[in-house]
């Protein structure tokens, strides 16, 4: 059991936010711009060649003498794809990321059951990580973003995307001092550095620049971006930060 009842109740009041209209295959609670067979009238527009005759508002034609067609929106289920980074660098914060992903899955499943929670629980660290192509809907990527190749993979997503940048407290404030051999958790490569106050300050500055660069990159491409720390309470992230970032509403 990942969550207690209280937390689950809080999740019930949340839903995934999308900036633009999205469409899915299954009917759901989301309105799409897809016309035809709709239950909810949206607006009129001038008739153009090729429009269905069924859509012409004959009453309006009778009053105004011009052809207008009615537009409807259709309620469809929001396709949601949750992409979890399982590379080795995620090890220190993987449990946090898994719980976050599960919470998001629960929220998404409230509209339409699209994410299997069992998949979330079966995720293991060290598995090859690649972002699948998501043609439409909403893609939520949970990663520490240390892989520079992620940018090109994110660009291939044609859906609306939310990037949740997860960092551990050790990444924010490395608990090392003195002469250390730093080993890359993924490549095994090592470098020797003397780490003092000067180096720690420099690291913090570089990390801030790194996060800022990701944030700008995401915003420039109309992606939601949220940086969070694995030590932060999940409830606070779900209730506050994801809402502020526009991932939930």
């Amino acid at each position: 059991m990942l969550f207690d009842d209280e937390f689950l109740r809080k999740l019930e009041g949340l839903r995934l936010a999308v900036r633009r209209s999205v469409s899915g295959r299954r009917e759901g609670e989301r309105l799409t711009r897809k016309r035809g067979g709709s239950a909810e009238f949206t607006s009129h527009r001038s008739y153009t060649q090729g429009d269905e005759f069924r859509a012409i508002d004959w009453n309006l034609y009778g009053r105004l003498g011009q052809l207008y067609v009615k537009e409807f929106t259709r309620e469809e289920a929001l396709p949601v794809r949750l992409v979890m980074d399982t590379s080795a660098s995620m090890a220190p914060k993987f449990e946090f990321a898994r719980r976050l992903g599960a919470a998001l899955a629960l929220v998404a499943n409230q509209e339409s059951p699209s994410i299997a929670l069992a998949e979330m629980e079966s995720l293991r660290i060290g598995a090859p990580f690649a972002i699948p192509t998501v043609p439409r809907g909403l893609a939520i990527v949970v990663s520490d973003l240390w892989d520079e190749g992620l940018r090109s993979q994110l660009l291939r997503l044609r859906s609306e995307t939310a990037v949740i940048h997860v960092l551990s407290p050790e990444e924010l404030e490395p608990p090392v001092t003195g002469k250390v051999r730093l080993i890359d958790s993924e490549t095994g490569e090592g470098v020797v550095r003397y780490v003092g106050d000067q180096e720690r300050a420099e690291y913090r500055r570089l990390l801030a620049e790194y996060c800022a660069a990701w944030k700008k990159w995401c915003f420039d491409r109309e992606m939601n971006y949220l940086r969070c720390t694995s030590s932060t309470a999940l409830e606070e992230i779900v209730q506050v930060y994801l809402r502020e970032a526009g991932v939930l509403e």
Partner: protein
Amino acid sequence: MKFETPGALWALLSLLLLVLFSLWRQAAAKVTVPSLALWKQIPERNPPVRALRRPKWRFELLLQALAIAAAVAALAGPYRETSELKPRRIAIVFDTSARMRAGDRLRQAQDQALALISSKLRGDEVSFYGALPSPERLKTLAQAQPVDLHVELEPLLAAARAAADQVILFSDRPADGAHLGLLPAPSDNVGIVEFTATDEEVFVRIANHGPTRPIPIELSAGDVRIRDTIPPGRLVWSRRGDYSKAPSVRVSLAVSDSFPLDDAVEAVRLAEATTTVSVTGLLHPQVLRALRAVPGVALRTGEGSARVAVGVDAPPGPADLRIRLIPAASRLPGEAVIANHPLMLDLDKRAKELAQVCGELPPADRIGQPLITVGGKVAAVVNGKDVRLCVDIGDWGNSLPSLPIFFANAVDVARSGGSRLTVLRTGQPMALPPETTLDPPSEGALLMPDGSLVAHRVGEYGLRTPSGHRTVHANLLDERESDTAGIRRDLDWDPGSPTGREPKRRGYGGIAAGAALMLLVLAWLMQLRTE
């Protein structure tokens, strides 16, 4: 615990260097980070000095420090003194000169040495040295046997000093740097210590360690045999005569003493005593007279084969040395310059005389090395075995001594110097005529690469020379005339005295060195494990 070289303990300061170096180069702790992307952008730098104040003590550092301490201790030579006395390194040197035969002194020395070893040198490391004839460490006492030559003590003592703390010398003469056991020369010895023999004179100097008395002496030179007596108190004897025809000259003392090796000496002539000289051209009486005056010259006229050929205003005949005297039309003004050449031996003192009789050589005859130049003009040259000399024969032969000197030099050069009476002394090289070999080969003599002969034993040696087989006698001629004859002096050192003797030491340097090595290996293994 004491140290042989306590100064080496200063090397412990290197521990400080080890600690500083270790702090500076502390082994880096391994830390796994999600990504090196940011760390790579941070430049590497050396730890600040303040970081050294927080040393990270490691076990291998302790092992290294202990290894250094053990190595320094090994260098310092730790030891503990025991109740036993330290064995001394003692060298007993025997003077193996031929003169030690007299009176059986070497045997006496060996007996004294044996007595010392079995009493006062018990437990010490004793070695023996002698000259056989070069300085050598002897394996046994019995190897100390006299050689037939004079032994220089200094190299012998130097070899002994290099391997011993104390040196005992048994000799009949004192020497520095050794405890002397003086074995005096017997007081009856009479011997020849100096000998020279020329074609005109024989000279000997004798040493008499016995009572003053008349000493019978005998000289044999070819057919000449002379018996004489050296009066009491006199130590030199000489006799003039014509020994130029004698192949050897032998002088002996008719005495009966304890050391007969120095009672007889002999000089030998290695080349023919007679040299044939031919004269062609004008038979000038002064030239013939000067040639006849040279000892050992057989003169003949005409062009027959000879050792030296002289042509007076005519080509000389075939010979090993051909001299052509060219009459001088006029004398040269200026001073004569005489070249340094065997043909001009002693003539430099007669330069003024030669300047009065020499003329300039015709251009065709000036080829070769100038022998005489007068006022810058060449008067005599030598070209291989041809000599050209432009001279006024009449004036030169007018009782001027330079003429016979020149011919004597010419005959000597033609003989290659081998016709002189030569004295061979043991241990000293003697020049031999070219292409001379030892026949039969002898262990007592060596033919040196420069062609000289060195004999180490008194006696006869056969030589094959270009002019035939010769027998040469090696003479002792030890010029050392002992001033200790009849004086006996016991060893001037008591080896049995405990004064100055050091206690035996038990050293721990080896253990310390082994421990250092072991600790070093352990530290290395620890470091490997850490990495």
